């Protein structure tokens, strides 16, 4: 492990340093006590930055001078000091994390990614209790119980609720009523706002334009054409000519989910309910079901306007994958897609056919985007302007990486010989 060096002339106005360098430097001074939160190169884990340093230590929302990217040298010392000051809490967080992992192993828990599940909880414990001391094992066990047992509604609870004869009639009436009164927002009049937002959202997201899109109900109005024959199907959101009222459903499995608009109410709620990291943030079952029913009849089958705006923006940006080259976010998405063709060659993966299926990718893109936005609604996480690009880009990355995984599996399945040796 070596410490990075930022040999930069002090206090030059306008001179910046990469934030990653400042963090790495401050981190390496914290020593081995924080190693469980770092990787083998001695840097903080991506999730340490995302779940601990950013939201709980540097807090760029409150301290824009610490935002991702370049940090003005004038603030460099302050940033380093802040991490140094958090050193004891971070060391305690690391110690708690080790203990929780040990207890997790003992309890035979295998569900979920420990970093996602426990990092912030361990930071809380470290902040309130300091290093794990007497009674720490009980605290760790309680944390595990909290995350894995008691937290939130369950799939079984959902299934019981929607199949209980006492509820079925009322729920079906609710669905019918919701679908009897379909979207009211008028069609989109060809506003230039989406393009204006997409033009700069990669580097300088314009919060004012995004706010205007939301108040303008641009997302809802952009969904009006989904009720024209074939439109939602062309966007990959349904296999039907027109979206139809979903079933209540009873069973679901993660592997064989239909397209988003064709999913039953149970299927829509299934994935979020099986995600241990988010389950505790969900409403209780009756509330979840009621809201899902209302959501299913809303524009884009999403409940809140910022998410619908994100769908609209995603559709506009993804059009750049197939159409003529566009600018801004659309151009960046397209370069990611084109880069993938190169990566396939360099990694010696099949490329023909895969790359020709760009329409399939656009559809997969919109489906994945919908699933992300839907998942965020369930935990009441509202999309804000500064997140839009990460969302739009992250969805394409995830579609592309899944495609790679599928190709890899397909190659193995095509093996002519019996099994693997």
């Amino acid at each position, binding site marked *: 492990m070596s410490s990075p060096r930022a040999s930069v002339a002090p206090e030059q106005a306008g001179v910046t340093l990469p934030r990653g360098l400042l963090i790495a430097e401050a981190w390496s001074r914290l020593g081995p006590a924080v190693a469980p939160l770092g990787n083998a190169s001695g840097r903080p884990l*991506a999730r340490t930055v995302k779940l601990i340093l950013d939201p709980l230590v540097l807090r760029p929302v409150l301290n824009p001078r610490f935002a991702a990217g370049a940090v003005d040298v004038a603030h460099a010392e302050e940033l380093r000091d802040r991490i140094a000051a958090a050193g004891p809490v971070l060391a305690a967080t690391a110690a708690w994390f080790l203990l929780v992992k040990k207890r997790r192993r003992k309890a035979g828990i295998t569900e979920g990614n420990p970093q996602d599940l426990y990092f912030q909880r361990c930071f809380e414990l470290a902040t309130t209790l300091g290093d794990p001391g007497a009674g720490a094992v009980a605290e760790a066990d309680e944390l595990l119980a909290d995350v894995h047992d008691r937290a939130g509604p369950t799939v079984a609870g959902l299934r019981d609720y929607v199949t209980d004869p006492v509820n079925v009639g009322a729920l079906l009436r609710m669905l019918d009523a919701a679908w009897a009164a379909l979207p009211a927002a008028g069609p989109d009049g060809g506003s230039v706002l989406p393009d204006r937002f997409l033009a700069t959202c990669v580097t300088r997201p314009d919060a004012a334009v995004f706010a205007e899109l939301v108040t303008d109900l641009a997302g809802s109005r952009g969904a009006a054409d989904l009720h024209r024959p074939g439109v939602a199907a062309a966007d990959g959101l349904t296999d039907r000519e027109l979206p139809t009222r979903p079933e209540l459903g009873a069973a679901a499995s993660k592997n064989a989910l239909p397209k988003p608009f064709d999913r039953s109410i149970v299927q829509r709620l299934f994935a979020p309910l099986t995600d241990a990291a988010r389950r505790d943030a969900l409403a209780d079952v009756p509330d979840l079901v009621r809201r899902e029913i209302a959501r299913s009849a809303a524009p884009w089958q999403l409940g809140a306007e910022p998410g619908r705006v994100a769908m609209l923006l995603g559709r506009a940006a993804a059009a750049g994958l197939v159409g003529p080259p566009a600018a801004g976010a659309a151009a960046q998405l397209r370069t990611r897609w084109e880069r993938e063709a190169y990566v396939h060659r360099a990694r*010696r993966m099949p490329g023909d056919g895969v790359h020709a299926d760009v329409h399939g990718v656009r559809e997969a893109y919109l489906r994945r985007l919908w699933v992300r936005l839907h998942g965020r609604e369930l935990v009441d996480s509202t999309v804000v302007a500064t997140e839009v690009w990460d969302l739009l880009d992250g969805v394409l990355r995830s579609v592309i990486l899944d495609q790679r995984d599928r190709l890899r599996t397909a190659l193995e399945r*095509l093996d002519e010989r019996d099994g693997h040796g």
Partner: protein
Amino acid sequence: MAETLRARRVESGVDVGEWPHPERTALVEGRGALLAWDVLSGAVFPAARVYDPVRAADWLWEVYGPEVAAELLGGAESVTAREDESPVRDACALLAHLGWVEAWWPASSVAGVPAVDPVLLNAELAVATAAVEHLLDDEDATARALAVATLPDIAVDPEVAALAARLAELADDHGVALPEPVAAPSRSEFALAAGGSDRTGTISVLSGVSPVDWAAVPAGVVDAAAGAEWAVVREPGGTVLEVTVLPAPGLAPRPRLSARFGDVELPLDGVDDLGRITGRVAVPPTVLLTPPARRVLTVYAAGFAETQPDPDASERRAAIIAYARSRVDTPTATITERRAGRR
């Protein structure tokens, strides 16, 4: 040691250095930039394609040093990078190299390049991925790498045991359950085939050997150095085109291959007594009139790149094969390379 790198501004960012041929490329997909080392050049500093300068700036200093990274992103046309200690750059180079081994390791009985063990390779890939996960484009890269990993058999040697321990710890950190090691299958290293088998009543009237384009078949399927043999054979019943391809040593998955000879397409769906991949199709006698320039056999797997004539291919591939052969005995090479062909 200093290395001079040229940089070019492009529409979406900055291109740094000379980009190697795909077969020589050891790639890392960083956040906002691709890095590529040329496995044959031995250069310390990779070429880079920076497509999102803001994201890349966060970590590019680890690779080129803070000053050079700032110059590159600031529009310099040429920079001089001085070699200094950078564990993160070394870790990136290791990950890149393992990716190259996965894609291009030229296993060949003919050239004496033993196959790599995919269990060791996937284990090393997962550990190397985790070491630089903070700068990768895919924030779930470690979990993804763990998903295809299995625990190596620790009885093999202490170095492998240490790797297995590290892998198990990583899996634990990410909540991934690794499959237990499976009993090592008896490896059938195919004996080198010596000529075609004799059959009575057939006359080979035209035959030849064409190289197999690596880019047209998946890794580890076809012997990287042996050519594909073809023969036009007269039999009592008519004229037949026969194709024979030597498989690579090792146990890589083997998808169905096809071949094209002039206008004739045929599936390579047979296996002969020597374990070679074979195909056979009836052809009109006019195939004998194929002009010499078109008597070329192309072997390919579905979906793989259409092959382009490449005059540099044979020299480049010979160099790669020699390089791979040397890696087996290079103390600083990866465990996967050093243990190639051993169990």
